[in-house]
């Protein structure tokens, strides 16, 4: 696009001036994206002026951007004008009242995963307080958290109740200009979670939210912001599952983490969006921007992700190591079966002195799956004695899948130590035969070998999550044997 910088600036600085009143009345906004839609969205959510301005700046910047093409993934162009950017949540009375009213196919998957009954209700959207469509958040232990001064609420609520905190930190790690999908998200994000842990407070429980895409053709634009003030500690779990779909759905979330001096944030994800069917039809496009900033000395941010779902995953949870002695970690399992594609990895940006980062990536490709690790380790000039260790292993099942590794290393300080190890292996017939000779079924044997391959990552997950993740690997590989 041949737009000069000044034109861009002007475009971004322009005030919103269109009307949208009729749009606010409707339960759902019509498909398409323009300033009216954004105005209506913001008005529906009764947002303060700064929020609308920020959205519009993001939208105007987004108009100047092009979809990135560098990822090792292929998909037909997304029509952003056919997406519905806001749909009202179903009220409690419209939801299934019990699991008896839920799609049996979905329940079968929960059964295989061994998800407890209570959680199945949550996941299946039975009338309990959980993220549903674009609005609302599970806030079960709110009172207990409030006693400690911890804020855990939906993003919309935070915008209303804690506008100063939101304004201070929103976009401070992922600016609205960051990338095509992050800009789009900034313009139209619907809801998400907000967490603030005050100085010296150790959050006594794991905070978790289950997301679920439900309404057809509703693009999901979640926005999550987690701030751990000095010396604070918080662990956040994000888990997703989606019901059967026969059309592509765009999911472009942004997650920002801010860890101040001596603070620690551990963020774990189990991502199991609908991956499409055996022929590669349908499935979610998961284009996510996740980034954390270690703002103070000795801050620590750790990402753990188990990515088994989505037709396409495009995701690089990263850490900016600003404070001296700060630590960034990335542990990942990405599994692609059938026609799934994943291009995922991390960026570790070493700015402070004596900063350390660890990357452990396990990619599994089966069927026609394509699995790419893409990572950047960047050591800036001032980052004396920075250290990175990267281990990147790929496991192939069958001969129609692919594993690719794109490590980028930029070191500008001679005292840095950067290590990179990579392996690619095929699941061996000998291993499977050995396990079957001990009495395990072929599928259990595959599951055992793959889970063993992922062990270093699973041990970073909380116990219950690790158990769920192991089962998920087994279920995701069904049909991959032979």
């Amino acid at each position, binding site marked *: 696009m041949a737009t000069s910088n000044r034109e861009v600036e002007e475009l971004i600085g322009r005030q919103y001036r269109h009307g949208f009143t009729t749009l606010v009345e409707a339960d759902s906004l019509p498909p398409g994206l323009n300033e009216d839609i954004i105005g209506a969205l913001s008005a529906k959510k009764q947002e303060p002026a700064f929020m609308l301005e920020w959205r519009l700046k993001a939208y105007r910047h987004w108009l100047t951007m092009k979809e990135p093409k560098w990822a090792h993934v292929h998909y037909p162009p997304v029509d952003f004008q056919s997406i519905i950017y806001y749909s009202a949540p179903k009220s409690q009375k419209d939801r299934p009242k019990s699991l008896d009213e839920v799609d049996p196919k979905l329940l079968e998957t929960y059964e295989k995963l061994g998800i407890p009954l209570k959680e199945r209700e949550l996941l299946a959207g039975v009338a309990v307080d959980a993220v549903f469509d674009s609005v609302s958040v599970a806030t079960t232990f709110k009172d207990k958290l409030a006693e400690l001064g911890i804020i855990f609420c939906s993003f919309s609520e935070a915008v209303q109740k804690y506008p100063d905190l939101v304004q201070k930190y929103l976009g401070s790690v992922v600016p609205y200009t960051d990338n095509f999908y992050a800009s789009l998200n900034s313009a139209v994000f619907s809801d998400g979670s907000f967490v603030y842990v005050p100085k010296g407070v150790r959050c006594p429980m794991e905070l978790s939210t289950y997301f679920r895409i439900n309404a057809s053709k509703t693009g999901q634009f979640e926005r999550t912001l987690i701030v751990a003030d000095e010396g604070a500690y918080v662990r956040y779990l994000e888990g997703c599952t989606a019901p059967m779909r026969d059309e592509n759905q765009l999911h472009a979330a942004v997650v920002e983490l801010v860890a101040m001096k001596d603070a620690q944030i551990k963020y774990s994800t189990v991502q199991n969006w609908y991956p499409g069917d055996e022929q590669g039809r349908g499935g979610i496009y998961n284009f996510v921007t996740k980034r954390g900033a270690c703002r103070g000395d000795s801050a620590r941010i750790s990402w753990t992700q188990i990515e088994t779902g989505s037709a396409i995953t495009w995701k690089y949870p990263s850490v900016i190591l600003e404070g001296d002695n700060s630590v960034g970690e990335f542990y990942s399992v990405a599994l692609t079966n059938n026609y799934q594609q994943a291009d995922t990895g991390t960026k570790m940006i070493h700015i402070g002195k004596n900063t350390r980062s660890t990357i452990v990536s396990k990619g599994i490709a089966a069927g026609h799956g394509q699995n790419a690790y893409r990572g950047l380790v960047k050591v800036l000039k001032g980052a004396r004695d920075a250290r990175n260790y990267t281990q990147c292993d790929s496991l192939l099942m069958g001969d129609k899948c692919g594993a690719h590794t794109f490590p980028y290393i930029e070191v500008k300080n001679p005292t840095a130590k950067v290590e990179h190890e990579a392996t690619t292996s095929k699941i*061996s*017939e*000998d*291993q499977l*035969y*050995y*396990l*079957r*000779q*001990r*009495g*395990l*079924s*072929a599928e*259990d*044997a595959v599951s*055992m*070998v793959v*889970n*063993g*391959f*992922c*062990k*270093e990552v699973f041990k970073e997950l909380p116990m219950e999550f690790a158990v769920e993740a192991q089962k998920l690997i087994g279920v995701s590989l069904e049909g991959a044997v032979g």
Partner: protein
Amino acid sequence: MLSIKNLHVSVEGKSILKGINLEVKAGEVHAIMGPNGSGKSTLVHVLAGREGYDVTAGAVTYLGKDLLALRAEERAREGIFLGFQYPVEIPGVSNIYLLKAALNAIRKHRGEEELDAIDFLARVREKLKLVEMKEDFMYRSVNEGFSGGERKRNEILQMAVLEPRLALLDETDSGLDIDALKIVANGVNALRTPERAVVLVTHYQRLLNYIVPDYVHVLVQGRIVKSGDKSLAHELERRGYGWVEAEARA
């Protein structure tokens, strides 16, 4: 227990076994000896259910069932255990995890309840003594970083815990020093009961000093050319395989 009749097996069009006949009764130990490439390993893998072998003729009956119709895991659950010559590494999977999954798969098949953690551990501890291994061994990844001797002892440990009806041991003595050999032999001897049978494949007579077989068979070029008792093994040790091969050709 096991009845092999006129078994012909080929791999990728190449004929390996050319009419094996063998009867194994409960309580018996059979040793199968023979030079390299005679088909000893092929025989045990065909019995254990490895894929990639074409059975071109013959039949195998095990406890009244058509063995060749069963998948590898079904054979294992029916009580066939193969001690591997080269036990494979399975990184990230602990020994104890595999053993528990295996035992429970077999118990489930038999309609028995899964062993709880306490009973299972008690059973494993008892068998660890048999093979003179420490408990921390159980928490290491299957065969990963194990010495040759440790791998073989691990096979015997698994066998001891799983308590098979028919144990097939493929070159279990290879790569073992004399102490390890004795430990392995003790493990196998402990399993000798009137209900069970053992078929062991070996190159050397050495192992048979410790596991005394009821029958010795010599396999040459895909055929059992000579059978006898333990004295045959001694003769082979003394004279090599040349004379049996010559006899077979004559």
